[in-house]
């Protein structure tokens, strides 16, 4: 009995560790793709959208018979784990996935992606981050391919496109949400815009999460007479800011970034009518693609509609699956990484990825839209392969 206490503790401990140990490898006919996202906590809705997008993609691929890898039919399975948006828990989730034989992992935000990036090459898995922070692809990691474009790409292309689409605009005021990503977006836009010989009259942070009274900032910014206001925030705060700006007599243009969606049309259609330049990072020109995706969502969860992160993870799973098919392997992450650039653009893609550069960043088409007559009017398709964005005007 003398040694009962430590032995009991040890036995319990060992049992628990084995309980947590990954199970036996899955049968060859199924391959797991990992998704790390916050499934609990304040950002759970974003994480659930991410998982939903990935699961819908897997369902669509499986319903079409799966993928053919080296002559064998393979079905996809999504392994989603909660990282609560905490980088250390992302590492834990990644370790668990690797133990279950996962070779391709999607991560949602910048911090978690950067934490997972440390493991990609040493542990041998392909990281598909859904974050736009440039740093993810500048560290020389081989096993990484970014699903959305970087904020550098969007911000610089937006400045180029503004110059072509609205040549009368000279002075731009920038108001950004005080987070590092939004601030960086504004800085890159400002650098490109001033590079064109134009002016930035103000660039200021404003906490859109906590404040709904925009008069203090507008009464500082509007007297500087900007021709356009670039507001780096989501639909709801932008709609309130647009209303208050018009009340203060502002007649200029509103510009937004890729995080702002279609909802702004419903919320402030009158205020932005004909004076809006919104960046739509998905190819919305082919309504059949979006309708097909919505239909797939309806089959899985009738009340859920595809959002930005869901479309990103959907795209990520398609890239992984088509890459595996092209590479003829589900276990060699480098071969999958090298094969993915050869499968774009693919028919189900909404993002319009044209190609990937050697760092792992993509060159995607995006659309600039105005809100005219109560509906979205797509003005131009934009992509940037060289130093300046290519603009294809739409009727």
């Amino acid at each position, binding site marked *: 009995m003398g040694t009962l206490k430590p032995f009991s503790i040890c036995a319990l401990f060992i049992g628990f560790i084995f309980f947590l140990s990954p199970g036996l490898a899955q049968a060859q006919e199924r391959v797991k793709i990992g998704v790390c996202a916050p499934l609990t906590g304040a950002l759970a809705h974003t994480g659930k959208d991410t998982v939903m997008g990935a699961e819908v993609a897997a369902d669509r691929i499986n319903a079409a018979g799966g993928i053919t890898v080296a002559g064998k039919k393979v079905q996809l399975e999504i392994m989603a784990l*909660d990282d609560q948006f905490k980088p250390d828990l992302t590492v834990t989730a990644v370790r668990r996935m690797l133990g279950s034989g996962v070779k391709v992992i999607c991560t949602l935000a910048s911090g978690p992606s950067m934490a997972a990036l*440390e493991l990609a090459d040493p542990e041998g898995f392909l990281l598909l981050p859904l974050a736009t922070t440039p740093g993810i692809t500048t560290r020389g990691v081989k096993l990484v391919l970014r699903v959305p474009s970087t904020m550098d790409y969007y911000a610089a292309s937006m400045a180029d496109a503004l110059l072509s689409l609205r040549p009368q605009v000279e002075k731009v005021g920038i108001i950004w949400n005080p987070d590092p990503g939004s601030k960086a977006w504004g800085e890159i836009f400002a650098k490109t815009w001033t590079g064109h010989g134009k002016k930035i009259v103000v660039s200021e942070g404003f906490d859109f999460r906590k404040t709904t009274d925009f008069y203090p900032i507008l009464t500082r910014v509007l007297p500087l007479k900007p021709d356009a206001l670039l507001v780096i925030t989501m639909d709801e705060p932008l709609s309130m800011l647009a209303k208050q700006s018009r009340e203060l007599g502002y007649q200029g243009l509103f510009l937004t970034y890729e995080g702002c969606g279609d909802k702004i049309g419903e919320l402030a259609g009158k205020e932005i009518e004909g004076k809006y330049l919104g960046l739509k990072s998905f190819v919305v020109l082919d309504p059949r693609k979006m309708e097909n995706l919505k239909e797939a969502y309806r089959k899985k969860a009738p009340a859920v509609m595809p959002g930005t992160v869901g479309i990103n993870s959907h795209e990520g799973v398609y890239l992984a699956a088509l890459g595996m098919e092209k590479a003829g392997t589900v276990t060699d992450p480098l071969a999958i990484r090298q094969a993915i650039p050869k499968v774009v653009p693919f028919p189900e893609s909404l993002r319009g990825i044209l190609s990937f550069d050697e760092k792992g960043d993509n060159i995607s088409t995006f659309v600039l839209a105005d809100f005219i007559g109560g509906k979205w009017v797509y003005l131009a398709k934009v992509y940037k392969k060289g130093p300046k964005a290519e603009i294809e005007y739409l009727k």
Partner: protein
Amino acid sequence: MKRWSLLLLILFLAALPLWLTAKYPLHLLIMVGIWSIAASSLNLILGYTGQGSLGHAAFFGIGAYTSALLMIRLGFSFWLALPSACVVAALFGFLIGLPALRTRGSYFAIATLAFNIIVTIIIEHWEDFTQGGAGISGIPKPHPIPLPLIGKIAFTTMAAQYYLVFFFLALTLFFIHRIVHSPVGKTYQAIRGGESLAESLGVNAMANKLVSFTVSAFFAGLAGSLYASYHGFISPDTTNFHIGFDLLIYLLVGGVATLPGPIIGAVIMTLIPESLQFLLEYRIILYGGFLILVVIFLPRGLVGLWRASLWPRIRMRFPANQR
């Protein structure tokens, strides 16, 4: 018997990586080790000295950032960066403790929490120095160390990282054990029991609290430094006050003012949420319910339950055990 149990436990922990080769369980154990050091540091000031700090994530983060910046910017070796990180964290503990420890109870808790938030904001916005929200990547692992008889120990494998963390955990526990069982430790406990009463007996409460807080920050910095090197990446999240609350929970669950309490808390609160991943948000309900039960029915945590109730019953049932 106590010594034999301890020796057996140490041998068991040392042998664990020999047959536990899967990386995921080893990773969990390494994280348990790091959180145990951090929670033990909080235990010194909160458990033994009775000062409820809610800002320990700041010292943890200061340790992580100091060691990362020293290694990346100044090319320090991990073996130099680690003690420097501990000293810098302790220095911040001393400087913050000077004004904050003049307050008591919830005022002290709020003051330390506010300090924590300020640290996070500075790290997030001082981009030229800390790389802001993008965080610091590529933090090196410890350099190999030559040891007599064994040869060089490289810290590239998970097993080596595990031994490193558990070596520092053992060191932390040893020092905290020595402190709390010394006359100084008794003074801390006297302050916890009644600060005014202790002062009336000639104890310099402020000086003792300040030393305790500084030492506590030193060990929190140690945990942060180990965290940075193990993960290779840190961001302002590493200083988030939620980490301080997590440490508090480890203490509550394991047992405040007990040496094994922080470790038991860290083990349970790391392994259980992992094993319940399949329950998604229901996991949080269970987690919350468990915490409520612990706070109401186990104010001394699981160690308190063992010592006050389970162990005496076992001894009564098996009287031979008492010999």
